[in-house]
């Protein structure tokens, strides 16, 4: 007989509950099962109304982020056997409003993300016939790390500043802004700086560093924000001391 492990899953059904409750399910404990497999087992065999997001099951779509035993994790990359004999607590990502069960409302992030212009901004757009904007491997290395972000929201969930002040632009959006600032093909750094050089932007970050520890893709948003602060400070000093043409 297969061993089982207890999953303590947060349920929130707004049509009949005013606040979340916890429901426990015993799921098979297979060596190759992640927490997400346990949730899928519940949905397929025990309670089809359980709601949660998932898609790729290989740590790239960024949909299945949840709190697993109090830590923000991709549930497809968190294996049940790593939690001993259990029980394993599965909760919706902390710091976000809960829509239903394990589904959180990320529309705040989706509103903020385009504001930092996470795409290549050009002052002088070349015609398509001129070919690609070429880039050396060293130039690519400058931003590659920050381009690994999968928008999974684990960094927001780990960030106490975002939990206390939802107006804070937040780690992933700033790291993505930095990803394009460091891209040799981009010319939009000035525009993004204007958007992020305010108290709810880079200066909202107090460098707790939990975003970097939570990131499943090694992006280091905390590092991106601190580098951005240095750039912003130098920019302010230059604009104070240098004539316009020399900045």
């Amino acid at each position, binding site marked *: 007989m297969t061993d089982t492990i207890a999953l303590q899953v947060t349920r929130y059904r*707004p049509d009949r509950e005013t606040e979340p409750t916890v429901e426990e399910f015993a799921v098979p404990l297979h060596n190759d099962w992640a927490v997400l497999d346990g949730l899928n087992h519940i949905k397929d065999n025990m309670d089809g109304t359980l709601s949660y997001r998932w898609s790729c099951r290989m740590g790239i779509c960024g949909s299945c982020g949840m709190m697993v035993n109090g830590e923000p994790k991709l549930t497809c990359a968190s294996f049940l056997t790593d939690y001993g004999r259990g029980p394993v607590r599965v909760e919706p990502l902390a710091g976000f409003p809960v829509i239903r069960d394990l589904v959180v409302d990320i529309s705040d992030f989706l509103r903020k993300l385009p504001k930092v212009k996470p795409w290549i901004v050009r002052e002088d757009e070349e015609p398509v016939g001129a070919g690609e904007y070429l880039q050396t491997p060293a130039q690519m290395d400058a931003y590659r790390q920050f381009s690994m972000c999968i928008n999974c929201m684990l960094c927001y969930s780990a960030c106490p500043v975002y939990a206390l002040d939802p107006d804070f632009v937040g780690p992933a959006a700033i790291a993505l802004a930095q990803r394009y600032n460091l891209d040799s093909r981009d010319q939009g750094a000035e525009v993004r700086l204007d958007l992020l050089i305010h108290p709810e932007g880079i200066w909202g970050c107090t460098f707790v560093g939990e975003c970097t520890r939570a990131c499943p893709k090694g992006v280091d948003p905390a590092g991106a924000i601190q580098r951005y602060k240095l750039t912003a400070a130098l920019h302010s000093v230059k604009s104070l001391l240098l004539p316009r043409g020399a900045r």
Partner: protein
Amino acid sequence: MTTGPGDFTERAGDQAYHVRPYRPPVNLLWWLRRRTYLFFVLRELSCLAVAWAVLFLMLLVRAVSEGGDVYAHFVTWARMPWIVVLNVVAFAFLMLHAITWFNLTPAATVVRLRGQRVPPAVIAGSAYAGWVVVSALVAWIVLRQ
């Protein structure tokens, strides 16, 4: 169904769905949940210790410049047990402030030499080395007779 201030309507095709999200309250003791959160709050609080250290230093400089009775009075005041305890606590906070500050320098500073990124340990190490040199210089100025 009751409607609350955070409710919104989501549309998918022709269907409209009323959404009543649950907003979890932030626990007052959230900063005790993790060691890193606790250190973060202590580091934020260390600014009070920095302010106290600056004030104490200014009072010391004034006492030294006045000399005589004023300086003797300052020394008597500074030896009071509660001032000593306050200064020990402030010193601990200042160390926390300085060490966490130096540890974050590699995160903010990316230096490239001959195409290679200078390792973070070298950047933090240089900051610590600078700290030791400046401290030694200050100690030499203060302690020489």
